[in-house]
């Protein structure tokens, strides 16, 4: 099993243009797509989906939202909400000593009636924070803060929306053209709250441009990060680690407040956000990451609550911000899984094991992605899943097709080789003999007839032998002209019989041989297939036939089979006259091919003294 896998792996590497190239191209394509933002949308979707599916964290009681809803507006009978109403709300809340109040309502212009009352509140109450809009887009109007508010009591509410219009990031500071830095509403509120708790906000340690809330450093999001292929550094930005759960914050209405339904405990020491929560006003942002009735839309004031909550939770509870791997690690993760896909598609043959492997792989990628989100790490899921599935599932079909085709071709090639070998070593040799003797005019009518009959018979024999082998491909038999040997016997014994058979043939040069130095020793056959054994037999037959035909004047023939200098092999050496060119030809090609399949070598050389040495050797254990 192990060996088989190793073999397939090795073949995969040898045939890299089939196995690695398409898989590698898939990986390259996906990496390219992600690099240039082609997968952002999908990655965001999965990110939101995972965030939404996290276990609930429970309500954050440090934050209270006073949401002025449609009913409240109906009751007031006017919109925008008049200054006096807002001043009253703030005054009422202040009785219960909140830590800080964020007024998430634009008040760049006074809304009659009650401007003086509200201005009074703004001027005297240090824990009231107002809002402004700073980053004017081409078509958006910049909204100023209330004039009466001191500068340090203002935060901006600009949202950093993604390409799909959804909110995932929180802008904490921004900078104007003059280099003046402005904080966001959530930042101002969180700082005020944490200061009252004695928790400091300090510059970051790992990233000097970032900051620490208590002991937790905020990871700055910029450039190429997470699922983002490109982000402007328009200030200090973090991902929003939305507070999970169905009701993350307590929300009360204006009516609740007026009718005394609000407990003073909800307000004491809390961050109170006052904002509009009416569908008619359309203060919405898009987010899929929050579990709610209408997950696509959340009110602006809720988004602010999430942003504040993650900052104060970091400072007070050490809750993590969402972090991402540096991009090289992300791409390493993606490429690695692409590699796993290739190996799965190439190595695993059994369809069930393959499906199982595919399932396990998908489970691991998705599981890791989700598991990491739960501990506030965003790792790539979509591109990883993409390369794994395309390579593991898609390319498998391609691999299978290629492998099937190849094994059919191999089969065909081996039949052609077998047939040619048999013809070459049998009838073709007889024919060559016949031709030679007819040139020499030694041919009598009788001997011609006899030889022709022999030729006829040996061709018929080949047909029969091929039929036998074709009908019973498992049969481990070596057949030559006159022999039929069982390849199940020890190979060196089979080879010795092949040798004996060839030497009995009437080849012209054999008659001059005086001494044969022969040694057939045991060969390691563990790694030899029947086909290879057959090939080795053919090689010996061919080499000996060559001596018989070409080694004129040979007196000494050496045939060795067994261990040779750490390798093993078959070697035929003669001392006759021989020129190499005479002996090149089909036989040599066969031998080269055989040597390649044995991962060994084939050498034929003229010896310094006289004669030719012909050797086939390969690695093997004793």
């Amino acid at each position, binding site marked *: 099993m192990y060996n088989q896998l190793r073999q397939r792996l090795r073949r995969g590497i040898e045939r890299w243009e089939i196995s690695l190239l398409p898989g590698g191209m898939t990986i390259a394509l996906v990496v390219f797509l992600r690099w240039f933002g082609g997968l952002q949308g999908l990655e965001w979707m999965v990110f939101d989906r995972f965030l939404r599916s996290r276990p609930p964290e429970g309500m954050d009681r440090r934050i209270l939202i006073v949401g002025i809803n449609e009913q409240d507006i109906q009751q007031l009978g006017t919109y925008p909400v008049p200054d006096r109403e807002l001043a009253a709300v703030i005054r009422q809340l202040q009785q219960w000593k909140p830590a800080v109040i964020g007024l998430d309502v634009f008040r760049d212009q006074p809304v009659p009636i009650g401007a003086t009352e509200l201005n009074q509140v703004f001027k005297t109450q240090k824990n009231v924070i107002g809002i402004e809009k700073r980053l004017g887009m081409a078509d958006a109007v910049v909204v100023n803060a209330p004039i009466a508010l001191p500068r340090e009591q203002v935060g901006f509410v600009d949202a950093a929306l993604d390409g799909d219009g959804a909110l995932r990031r929180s802008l904490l500071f921004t900078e104007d053209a003059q280099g003046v830095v402005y904080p966001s509403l959530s930042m101002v509120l969180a700082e005020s709250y944490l200061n009252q708790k004695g928790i400091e906000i300090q510059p970051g340690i790992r990233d000097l441009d970032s900051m620490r809330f208590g002991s937790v450093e905020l990871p700055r999001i910029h450039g190429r990060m997470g699922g983002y292929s490109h982000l402007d550094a328009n200030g200090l930005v973090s991902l929003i680690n939305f507070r999970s759960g169905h009701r993350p914050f307590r929300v009360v209405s204006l009516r609740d407040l007026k009718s005394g339904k609000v407990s003073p405990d909800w307000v004491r020491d809390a961050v109170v956000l006052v904002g509009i929560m009416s569908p008619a006003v359309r203060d919405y942002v898009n987010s899929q990451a929050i579990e709610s009735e209408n997950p696509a839309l959340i009110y602006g004031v809720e988004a602010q609550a999430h942003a504040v909550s993650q900052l104060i939770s970091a400072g007070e509870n050490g809750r993590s911000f969402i972090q991402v791997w540096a991009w090289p690690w992300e791409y390493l993760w993606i490429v690695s899984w692409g590699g796993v896909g290739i190996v799965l598609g190439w190595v695993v043959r059994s369809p069930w094991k393959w499906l199982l492997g595919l399932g396990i792989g998908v489970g691991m990628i998705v599981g890791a992605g989700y598991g990491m989100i739960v501990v506030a790490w965003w790792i790539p899921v979509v591109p990883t899943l993409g390369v794994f599935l395309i390579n593991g599932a898609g390319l498998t079909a391609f691999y299978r097709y290629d492998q099937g085709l190849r094994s059919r071709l191999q089969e065909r090639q081996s039949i052609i080789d077998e047939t040619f070998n048999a013809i070459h070593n049998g009838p073709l040799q007889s024919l060559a003999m016949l031709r030679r003797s007819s040139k020499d005019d030694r041919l009598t009518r009788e001997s011609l007839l006899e030889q022709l009959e022999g030729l006829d018979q040996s061709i018929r024999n080949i047909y029969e032998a091929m039929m036998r082998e074709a009908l019973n491909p498992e049969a481990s038999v070596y057949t030559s002209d006159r022999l039929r040997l069982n390849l199940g*016997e020890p190979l*060196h*014994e089979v080879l*010795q*019989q092949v*040798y*004996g058979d060839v*030497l*009995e043939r009437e080849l012209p040069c054999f008659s001059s*041989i*005086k*001494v*044969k*130095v*022969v*040694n*057939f*020793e045991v060969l390691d056959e563990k790694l030899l297939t029947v086909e290879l054994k057959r090939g080795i037999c053919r090689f010996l037959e061919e080499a000996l036939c060559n001596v018989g035909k070409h080694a004129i004047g040979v*007196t000494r023939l*050496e045939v060795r089979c067994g261990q040779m200098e750490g390798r093993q092999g078959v070697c035929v050496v003669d001392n006759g006259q021989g020129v190499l060119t005479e002996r090149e030809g089909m036989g040599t090609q066969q031998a080269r091919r055989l040597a390649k399949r044995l991962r060994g070598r084939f050498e034929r050389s003229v010896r310094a003294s006289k004669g030719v040495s012909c050797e086939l050797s390969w690695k093997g254990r004793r």
Partner: protein
Amino acid sequence: MSKFRILVIDDHAMVLGGTTTALKTHYSDAELHTAQTAQQGLEQIKVLNPDVIVIDLSMPEKTGDIAKVDHGIQLLRQIMTDYPNLNIVVQSAHVKSLVRIKSAIAGHEGGFTIADKGLSMQEMLTKVDWAMQGVVFTPKEMRNGIEMKAEWLDVLRLAFEEGLQDKGIAERINVAERTVRHYWSKIQDVLDVYPDEGKNIRIQTEKRAREEGLID
């Protein structure tokens, strides 16, 4: 001479009887044992540690099996691996099938003679005698002319060109003296030189080797 043991392995009761009778008459002081299957044969060799075995090629593996030459060949292979010094006489009508294990025979260090079943009883007894002397005899049809191992050629050269004795040869080619003696048996078989009353076998060997051009 102490009593020596002969084991005859043959599945034909008649042949077995004939052979043992002849052997008994010839070697009055021998202890004779018989086996009828390959399995029995192996067991007997283990227990008896015989000086010589006479074996038929065609035999059943176990009692009740069909007799096959393959079983005999397999048994011979086994015996030659396990007892490389045992003297063996192969008595068979299928001498040609021994070609398969020629390499094993070439490596066997005990006496090894082959007696065709068509031979007279006297000739058969000679083959047993030879085997016990460590002689090697294989019929000509089993051989491809002069077929030597490289070591055997060395022995010839050292003995007849350099005039070394067995002990000297053994030292030169780094083997035991008894291995050199066993090489001589092999060489003599190749050169068709066998024990002959009143003739010096080494001189015969030298003569034949010169005839064949194995030494200058």
